[in-house]
């Protein structure tokens, strides 16, 4: 048993995440107020007070952030999420946005965003993968996927894509892939994005993953507004801010990564609870509170891994089944059919088709 399994993993409940008020709440509130929202109604139930809004280091919990977002969603203004992303990107008081705007290239910007992600979007996490000659950013919700999570997804996408549009002048090289369920949810929003998007094949209800495909050569393309000095200054501010925030990953993310490490065997309740340093019943209760279960998480991990393996290697179904921990290839094929509605071989053909299109 190695040391990381003996020592407890750092984790937190998704509601324990803290968000800086200046990194979202104030921008969202001004946008909502311009759309006729009353401040007292928008703040109702959030335990945020008007006076706190102007404190530079004012913080609130993720639960309050979600409440605030759902209050703002009452306004029936579908553009709010996208605008929030744009407003966050151009906010002069958000150090991480300033750093990203003045980064040298996309690689540096993404590194900043990944490292300081808790300052901007604590409720989603990112998985990085390489596929052919593309970098794949897979965004996964760190808590239950509800209306607030999809609001945040929209604002994150518009943040990233307006950054790229600003720096490159055009981001048609970037491709976005969503599950059909998400495409339906964001039908009004997607056409406003300045990139190509395609409907993924994940047909099951857990297909919450959103993938962003960026060509590898684009990572090095220099940014228009690169300014090393300003970037370093902003990075220093980010580093200091980071100390004031909850940095532990959420339970969902920890279990996801744990299962990824344990493949091909499935993560058991006992293993998970020892790794997290709690009793099995406590873990079960927590999972119920987060509206998820170990089997769903391991299914999601297997699904992601299967997509990666299918696109990377030419392994046979039998080998894939073994690597993913299925007893035989029939079980693997059945699971794959459940995720995508396609057989693995058809999926491989489809992947080839789409990657040729995007080249």
């Amino acid at each position, binding site marked *: 048993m190695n040391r990381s399994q003996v020592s407890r993993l750092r984790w937190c409940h998704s509601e324990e995440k803290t968000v800086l008020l200046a990194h979202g709440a104030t921008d969202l509130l001004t946008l909502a107020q311009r759309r006729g*929202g009353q401040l007292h109604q928008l703040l109702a139930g959030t335990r945020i007070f008007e006076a706190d809004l102007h404190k530079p280091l004012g913080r609130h919990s993720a639960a309050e952030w979600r409440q605030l977002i759902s209050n703002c969603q009452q306004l029936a203004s579908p553009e709010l999420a996208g605008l929030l992303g*744009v407003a966050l990107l151009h906010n002069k008081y958000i150090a991480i946005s300033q750093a990203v705007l003045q980064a040298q290239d996309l690689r540096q910007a993404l590194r900043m965003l990944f490292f300081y992600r808790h300052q901007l979007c604590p409720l989603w996490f990112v998985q990085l993968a390489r596929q052919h000659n593309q970098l794949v950013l897979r965004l996964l919700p760190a808590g239950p996927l509800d209306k607030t999570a999809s609001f945040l997804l929209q604002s994150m996408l518009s943040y990233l894509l307006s950054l790229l549009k600003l720096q490159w002048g055009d981001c048609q090289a970037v491709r976005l892939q969503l599950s059909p369920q998400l495409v339906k949810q964001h039908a009004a929003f997607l056409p406003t994005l300045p990139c190509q998007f395609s409907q993924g094949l994940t047909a099951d209800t857990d297909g919450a993953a959103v993938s962003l495909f960026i060509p590898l050569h684009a990572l090095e393309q220099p940014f228009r507004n690169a300014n090393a000095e300003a970037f370093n200054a902003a990075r220093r501010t980010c580093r200091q801010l980071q100390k004031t925030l909850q940095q532990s990953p959420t339970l969902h993310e920890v279990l996801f990564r744990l299962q990824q490490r344990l493949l091909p065997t499935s993560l058991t309740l006992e293993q998970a609870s020892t790794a997290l340093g709690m009793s099995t019943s406590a873990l079960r209760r927590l999972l119920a509170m987060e509206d998820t279960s170990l089997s769903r998480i391991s299914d999601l991990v297997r699904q992601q891994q299967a997509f990666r393996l299918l696109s990377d290697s030419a392994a046979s179904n039998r080998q894939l089944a073994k690597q993913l921990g299925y007893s035989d290839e029939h079980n693997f094929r059945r699971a794959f059919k459940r995720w995508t509605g396609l057989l693995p071989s058809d999926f491989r053909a489809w992947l080839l088709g789409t990657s040729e299109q995007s080249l």
Partner: protein
Amino acid sequence: MWQLHQQKLMFSGLLLLSSLLLALQLGDVKPLAAVDLIDALGEGCTLLVCCSWLWLIVSSRPAGRVTERLYYGCLLLVFCYFLDVGDEFIHYPADSVLMIWLESFTAPVGMVLLTFGLVGWHHEQRAIDRQLRGRELFFRDHQLLDPLTQLYGADYLQAVLDRELALQQDLQRTKQPLSLLVIDICRFSEVNRQFGVAAADDLLCQLGEAVASQLRFSDLVCRFRADCFIAVLPNTALAQAQQLQHHLQQQLQRLNLQPAAALTIVAQQVSARDGVGALADAAALLSRKRNSRLPAELAGQIG
């Protein structure tokens, strides 16, 4: 809104209180066994509903003549039902004419007053409809309003187009043409970036206001997408629509909206043959325009 009506509310409270005192003075309280509970419950419910009407009037209407009529009409109804509930619990002597009169005459007077108020409201609404010209056609649903520009959104546009096209199909012989004007802000994301989201919101509001005020009574402007407005021009052929488009371009140029942004205005005729998916048409029109495959004279540069 209710702060505007504080005096009225105070007066109503006093009126109800004094009527209660008067009733207690004149009559005496019935024993509980003699009270008909079902009757009391029914009349109590009527009273509560009336009170909620009063509350709705107070919380939704600005002060004014029409509001006053509606309010006092409703207040008299409340007063009448209040006495009605009261007489379930209080027994009046047979010779007390005052209470009987108060109880039976207030309701008709109140209703007459309420009717006058409603007639006034009707006239007022017609005036407001005139104010809303260019913003609303035949159908009202406040939930479809875009909260920023106060114009209707894409769903409303879809409903209006569906109806117009259905009408067109019915009146095939009369051949009423229907046209659309698509008003698009070029490179809106750059406005967002250069001047900030607040200034961009401001521009949208001003533009919506300006377009709505420049069109005719029968036209309708909707906010189709973030940076795109669509005007529906019923009973307008393409030539006429193009005239309107030139007019709009000139006027918007003269208004010189800030922050400056380039606008593209395109006129297009829609016919019933295209089917009810007219919004898809509009979207296709838009994407075609974005690909800038349109005649040069149609793309106007403003700002």
